């Protein structure tokens, strides 16, 4: 679908009369069109909508093509199609779920688990991704990081939910404090409400920090390589700490060159080559 795009031709000089107030401000003149401001805005919005629609239409076509490849058993082609969409930034839970399925069919369980995890990172209540993740883990015998008890309790809400709660509580608390500052009489209820809101804010911020740095936080990565060994030092000849099947979870603690230091399942820590694992959060 093609949309005409109006290109501004030159800068119109300022005019007198009612437009005196805009004197000195350069204004765009549309060639051969004496349009009003409203019409120009409408055209601009239409253009934006058109470009967006065209982009969506293109991505829909690529998505449909990848789905078709998958249905016909051309899993590698399907993987390539889905990956192209991921590279284009068309991220959504269903795309990662489908990509995970395509990798599963190619028996690349590490990347299948990685993409199921990404689908769940975007939509933590994605039932299909949850189910297939379990199956992929069973197939690959992947190891998992055990969240602490505190993390398990905190996971009843997501980081974004905690963030919103923190913001709302913060502003309520601040409004309450400002109202108290100007009030002639100090209201005990208002004081209590303000303190409560600020406490809720603090707890929510702490929860965000714990979850973000926890076993399923931003450091979470999935082993995608085969026969990966976590080692005591940054050398292939260093002693092995743990053998990590594909799809195993690790938490990246730091990186040094081609190696990263990670928390491993079983409360271990070791060095892994960066090419052997990918972070869940893009």
């Amino acid at each position, binding site marked *: 679908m093609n949309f005409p795009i109006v290109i501004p031709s030159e800068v119109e000089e300022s005019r007198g009369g009612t437009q005196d107030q805009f004197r000195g401000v350069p204004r765009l003149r549309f060639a051969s069109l004496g349009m009003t401001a409203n019409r120009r805005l409408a055209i601009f919005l239409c253009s934006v909508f058109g470009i967006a629609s065209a982009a969506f239409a293109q991505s829909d076509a690529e998505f449909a093509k990848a789905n078709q490849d998958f249905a016909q058993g051309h899993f590698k082609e399907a993987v390539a199609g889905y990956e192209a969409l991921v590279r284009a930034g068309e991220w959504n839970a269903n795309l990662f779920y489908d990509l995970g*399925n395509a990798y599963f069919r190619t028996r690349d369980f590490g990347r299948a688990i990685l993409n199921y995890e990404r689908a769940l990172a975007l939509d933590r209540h994605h039932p299909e991704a949850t189910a297939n993740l379990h199956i992929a883990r069973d197939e690959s015998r992947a190891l998992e990081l055990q969240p602490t008890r505190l993390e398990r309790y905190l996971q009843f809400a997501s980081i974004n939910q905690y963030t919103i709660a923190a913001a709302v509580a913060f502003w309520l608390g601040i409004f309450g404090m400002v109202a108290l500052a100007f009030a002639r009489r100090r209201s005990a209820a208002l004081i209590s409400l303000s303190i409560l809101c600020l406490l809720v804010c603090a707890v929510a911020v702490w929860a965000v920090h714990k979850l973000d740095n926890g076993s399923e936080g931003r450091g979470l990565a999935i082993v995608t390589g085969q026969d990966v060994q976590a080692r005591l030092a940054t050398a292939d000849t260093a002693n092995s700490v743990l053998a990590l099947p594909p799809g195993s979870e690790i938490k990246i603690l730091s990186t040094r060159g081609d190696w990263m230091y990670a928390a491993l399942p079983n409360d271990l820590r070791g060095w892994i080559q960066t090419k052997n694992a990918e972070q869940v959060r893009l």
Partner: protein
Amino acid sequence: MFQRISIALLIAAACIDFARADSPSVTAVLSNSEATVGETVELQIKVTGPGDARPPEEISIDGLEIRSTGTSRQFEIHNFATSSSVTYNYTILPLRAGRFTIPPQTVRAGGKILRTPELALNVADAPGQQTTTRPGRGAQSAQSQATGARDLVFAELIVPKKTAYVGEIVPVQIKMGFDARVHPRLTEPPDITGQGFTSQKLQQSSQNLETINGRPFEVVTFKTAIAAARAGKFEIGPVKAKAQVVVPRRRNAPRGRSPFDLFDLDDPFSDPFFSNPFAQFGERRDIQISSEPVALEVKPLPPNAPPSFSGAIGSFTIATDAKPKSVQVGDPITVTTAISGRGNFDRVNAPLLEDDRGWHKYPPSSKFKQDDEVGISGTKTFEMVVSPNENKQSLPVLAFSYFDPAKEQYVTLHSEPTAITVQGGATAPAVAAQQPASSPATAPRGRAPVPTKPQDILYQLTEPSRTVASFEPFYARRGFLLAQSLPLAALLVFAGWKIRRARLDDREARRIGALQHEAAELMHKLRRDDASPREYYAEASRVVQLKAALASRNRGLDPNVVDAETAAETFKLDTDSRERLRSLFEQNDEWQYSGTHNGPGRISPENRRDVLELIENLK
């Protein structure tokens, strides 16, 4: 009855003990029965019993120079039994080689004459001189002060084996001796130099006082272990360390012999500094200590190592346990294997399953508990989770191989066969929940039981999504941060509105205050009788206007526009009061505007009282 017998027995035992303690005895020991010429040996004669013992007379033996170095007394109370002892110390310096006999010495103690046993001392010729830097006569001939400082310390590297295999752990001891009077301080710990071997972390094992060449030395013992990395002949060491010691300052005047320098060994402590610390200050000096190197021949491991050999060298035993022993197909079983013994535990890997068909195994975890200071003796425990894929009657046999340097051959240990019960077909609903707590967390949580047919993944989702999601949490998104400007703006508006309102309230309050102040001043003037009628009525009217403005606070009434009717309305006056108020305002107008007045030049007290009463009643 029984109690009396017990008491009697206790008393009898105490008496026997006392009698035994009362009977003096004597022993004599040599610190070493073998020595070389110039190497000193300690002789101790210990008298146990009553305290009035007399030491033996001077011991004189041809070829040996024996000097008394002091007496020490000990008093002990042990289980209500007391004992005391006196020890006479001697230092023997062999002057020539040969076999010497120290004859029994006579000691008087508790009124008795006791005799020490006869002692033998074999003295060999000195082979050149001491190999280590232990202080000795030959080494002491150095003249410089630095040499003297070095004579106050020594280092010795003790390697118990002359040959070893590649990778074999060889325990090593390092002894560092410091003359007790130099207040030594180790600035750099000992380091074993050399190439072709790895050494473990050095551990300080003990620190004790020894007498060497008649001088007390603080001897610190370090322990470590080395392992050769390749075959060949190596030189281990020398051990090098740095220390600070206190030595006397250089002096030009000749000095006398130290009481410690029994045999005129040119002891640096013959300096008066040590006999009288105030005679001259000592100086702290850095010295380097080094030992002699030790040769070690390293042999390669023999070929044809068994498949389960991972490089372990030493002597080990294996013990295995498994839990639970009754499972469903697919359930996890934790197999715990303990490998104990002595050797290079860093190369001890988990034992292998000899036949893993029908089993799925997970990577093992391990932990090591060392029994010694350097970690060459202990127990390494492996936990491995295995799960049967089919019906089995026993766990697979585990094999662990190592090289025994004593037997000079490879040894393979096998675990005892462990019977288990595996029920196939039926699936356990909650496998992860049944997992033992001690099992490693490597097994997948919530793992589904192994079905006969592998599970398949769910369908594709072909519905395209219109929304593009982000992995970035809200707090890191620009939109979220921009959205915070809305409540911030609202807060600023709210605060501004509150501030404006407060200011308005403040202005009104000031206006009211000013009106009240003016009304009070005018009332004060009205109560005085020195005002002219023109002033009086003007002030009275003004007070009425002020009071009316104050009374109508909410309406913001300007006092200048208040007339009689407005004031009467404001105070809701009755007809009489309204008339009086009107009359007051008229009189004021007359005085203000007519220029003359029909009445008297002064206001009568009745009129004044009447006006005041009217004004005061305006509320």
